[in-house]
Every structure is written in structure tokens, then in C-alpha cells.
């Protein structure tokens, strides 16, 4: 290896970042395709089937189309914030994935002296980092809504910020219950704590200890990612397209990308916290990430399935549900978990 190259561990780490980033972009593309396909089958249609095998390349065709579209900006818009908003959205969506572990460690078939963990960075407060970055993502939506200087965008932005603030509380409380069980804020440790089985066949996943917490987390996760049945920021009948009404071309595509990457991230967090992350039977250690992908895929499929099955709530129902039902249940769940931990020890 030439001397001017950085040490192999650094190179491997940069490579890891590149792989994770591209996997996220590809999974977003895949999600767009899956969403359209599943939606089509649910509605008894065929869905995209012209570009590539069964339309797999449709998202790429869409992106190329979007790239060549004209970038429009309303005359009265706040130019700077209008341009920054989609960047904040997309950056926050990608950044949150940095702390999620998706496998054990690898030496790349002996290429490296030290094995590197399959995770961009292992922070000891990883769960809180995800929480913090997710809350930054709100700004993209709020700023887009405000800076467009259009009433539909503004209403969409306001709704989404109110919604995200309301559901973030339940989301955080569901996380806290798992943190208490694991006794750690590091995602890698939380996953490793779920190793093993009860009576030889039930995996020790936290979903079995925290079934209510899992439900709360998934519900709040849907609201956080602005997905149906909680997709008020973009309720078409009322708000045209919500906060991204005035966006076109690639800045629109960035919001789109952020939405799908956020879904992947929420599913990955749910997998790590409740479903044992990369842990699973049959596969050798170096293939453990396959389990991670399978679990994330199943949750994503569930999201898509839900979107095309359930109608949208009304906005006041959503707020009422968040504050009057979900939050009290989350608080009770947290208290009960704490009491049980104290009692059992």
C-alpha cells in the first residue's frame, strides 16, 4: 500500500460510510417501488411494470425526470430558507442512521488487523442522538412551510410541527422504557442484551417484555414520519401537497427522499430496540446483517400495507389521540416497567 494513503482502518471506515449512505439511497428507491407495487396490488392493479423487471427501475426513471425539471421558487418566498429547508430534511434523515448498528464486526476477510464494527459510529448515548436528530428534521418541514409564503404550505408546516411535537413525547417515553430494561443508551449494547432465548425457543427480544412499548413506538413512529394514517402535513384534499406544495424538481425529490429514509431509520431503530437487531438463528456471524435487513424490510412492508389500508384520521382526532390516549399509556407503561424492574430486580 502506498505511504500517502491513510491507514486501512480509516479507509475501511470511509468505505463503511459510503456503503451505508448508498444503501439508504437505494433502500429509499426500493421503498418507492415497493410502495407503488403493493398499493397497486391492494387496489387490484398492476402498478409500474415497464421500466426494468416488474418496474424495479421506475424510481430511477423518476429521479432522472425530476433532475431535468425546472426548479421553481415563488416570488415572495424567503430565498435562503426556501433553499435550506429540503437540505435540513434530507441531512437529518441520513444523519440519524449513523449510530445504528446493523451487524457484528468484520475484518473484510483478513484485510484489516482490527475488526471494524458494522456501524458508522458507536456513541454511548446513541438512543438520545437518534431522538435529537429526528427532532431536527422538523425544521426542514416547518421552514419549507413558512418560507414558501403560501397558505397551504404554511398550514402543512404548522400541522406537521404540532403533530411531531405531540408524538415525540410518546416516542421518547417508549424509548425510555427499553433503556431502563437494557440499562444502557448504546444501541449496540441494547441489541447484545437481547441475545439468547427463553425456554430455548422464544428469543429474548424486548418486544416480548415491552409489547405496549412496541405498539406505542410504532404508532408514534408513523406519526413522526408523517405517514398515513397520520399524513396530515400533506393531506391532499385539504392542503394540496402540504409543506412541499411550492417545491419542484430536486428540492421536491429531497423531501421525498427524506421521508423514505426516515421510514427506514424508524424501522431500523424499532428493529434494534425491540426485535433484537441483527441477532437471529441459522446464519453465521458474518452474515448476521441479513437478519437485520429482513426485520427492517418486514416493518417497512407493514408501514406500506397500513398506508393503503387505513383511511386518514381527522386532525383533531390525531391530536386528541396523541395527548389523551397515547401519552398517558406511554407514561403508565414507563411507570409499570420501572416498578417491575425494582420488584424483580
Amino acid at each position: 500500500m502506498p505511504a500517502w494513503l491513510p491507514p486501512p482502518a480509516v479507509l475501511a471506515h470511509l468505505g463503511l460510510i459510503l456503503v451505508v449512505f448508498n444503501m439508504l439511497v437505494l433502500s429509499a428507491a426500493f421503498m418507492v417501488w415497493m410502495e407503488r407495487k403493493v398499493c397497486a396490488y391492494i387496489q387490484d392493479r398492476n402498478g409500474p411494470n415497464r421500466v426494468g423487471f416488474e418496474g424495479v427501475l421506475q424510481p430511477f426513471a423518476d429521479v432522472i425526470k425530476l433532475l431535468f425539471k425546472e426548479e421553481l421558487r415563488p416570488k415572495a418566498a424567503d430565498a435562503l430558507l426556501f433553499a435550506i429547508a429540503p437540505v435540513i430534511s434530507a441531512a437529518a434523515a441520513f444523519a440519524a442512521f449513523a449510530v445504528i448498528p446493523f451487524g457484528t464486526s468484520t475484518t473484510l476477510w483478513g484485510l484489516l488487523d482490527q475488526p471494524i464494527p458494522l456501524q458508522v459510529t458507536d456513541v454511548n448515548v446513541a438512543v438520545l442522538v437518534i431522538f435529537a436528530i429526528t427532532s431536527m428534521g422538523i425544521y426542514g418541514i416547518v421552514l419549507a412551510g413558512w418560507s414558501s409564503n403560501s397558505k397551504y404550505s404554511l398550514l402543512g408546516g404548522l400541522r406537521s410541527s404540532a403533530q411531531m411535537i405531540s408524538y415525540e413525547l410518546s416516542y421518547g417515553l417508549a424509548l425510555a422504557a427499553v433503556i431502563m430494561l437494557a440499562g444502557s443508551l448504546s444501541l449496540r449494547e441494547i441489541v447484545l442484551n437481547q441475545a439468547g432465548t427463553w425456554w430455548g425457543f422464544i428469543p429474548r427480544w424486548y418486544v416480548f417484555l415491552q409489547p405496549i412499548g412496541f405498539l406505542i413506538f410504532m404508532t408514534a413512529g408513523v406519526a413522526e414520519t408523517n405517514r398515513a394514517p397520520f399524513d396530515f402535513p400533506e393531506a391532499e384534499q385539504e392542503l394540496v401537497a402540504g409543506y412541499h406544495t411550492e417545491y419542484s424538481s430536486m428540492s421536491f425529490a429531497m423531501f421525498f427522499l427524506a421521508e423514505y429514509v426516515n421510514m427506514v431509520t424508524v424501522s431500523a431503530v424499532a428493529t434494534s430496540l425491540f426485535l433484537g437487531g441483527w441477532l437471529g438463528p441459522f446464519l453465521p456471524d458474518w452474515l448476521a446483517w441479513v437478519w437485520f435487513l429482513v426485520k427492517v424490510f418486514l416493518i417497512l412492508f407493514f408501514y406500506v400495507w397500513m398506508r393503503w389500508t387505513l383511511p386518514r384520521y381527522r386532525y383533531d382526532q390525531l391530536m386528541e389521540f396523541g395527548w389523551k390516549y397515547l401519552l398517558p399509556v406511554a407514561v403508565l407503561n414507563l411507570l409499570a416497567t420501572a416498578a417491575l424492574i425494582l420488584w424483580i430486580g
Partner: protein
Amino acid sequence: MDVIAFYIFAAIAVVASVLVVGQKNPMHSVMLLITSFGALAGLYVLLDAPFTAVTQIIIYAGAIMVLFLFVVMLLNVPREEPAPPAVSALLGPTGIRIGVILSLLLGAEIVWALSRIGLGWFPQDPAAASVSSVALIGASLFTRHAFAFEATSVLILVAMIGAVVLARREH
């Protein structure tokens, strides 16, 4: 490396904070304040306090500033009126005069404080590295600082009740 990062974060924090005051558009002020909070979080990371950094982002940048943004958006304050040209800052309206006095006081306090501790490098405390542990922070919050902790929660409760009372007055 750490020193370069420190100066970058410190510069961002100071410049953003100064610009917060100078903006005509309240929305830009809010965004700059968030930037400043982000840079502060970076400084906490450099101080080996990731937990403090993350709470800084979650509470200040994430929760409180969203509320700020909300209020600014709902009130839809378009732009501040440019202040009438003052003859002299000291002879301006009462508000400005009080501001001048307060900032002079603050400046005097900073000079006094710096003269007390000196401008050298702070000694490295070996125990400081363990402060980043969440368990330690929790333990000291509920033992040594229990009174301050409980007092804060009462203050927050008062604020909440105040908000509810204000909101109900219209009915």
C-alpha cells in the same frame, strides 16, 4: 485537531449569536439561534460530555426553538420596523437606556470574573472524563442536587398552570 474544532464551533456560536440580534426578520433570528445552540452542542462534545450535548440539542434546539418558531409563524410578524435614527444610544428611549446600563454591568462582571480566575488554561481534571456517564449524572441529580431538581420541576409546573389559565381565559 480538538483546538481547531473548538475555534470553529466557538466562532460559529459567537457569530450566530451576534447575528441573532441584528436580524430584521424574526424567523432568521430563530434559525440563527438554533445554529448557535448546535455549535454549543459541538463544544460540549469536545468537552467529553456527549450527554450534555445531546440534551442541549433535544431540549433547546429541538423542543424550545420549535415552540419559538411556532409562535413566530402563528403571529406572522413580517419584519421589524427599522428603529428611528437615535440621536445617541444613551439619549434614546427608556428601553435602550436600560439595555445600555445592563450590558455595561454585564461587561464589568465579565472583566471582574476573568480577573479573579486568570486567563490561563484550565487544569485537566482526571475525574472530569467520567462526568459523561449518564448513570453518574442521574445519581447526582437525585442525591446531591435533589433540591434544585425538585425546585425546577415545581417552577415548570407553575409555568404549565399559568399557560392553562391564560389559555382558558378566553372562554
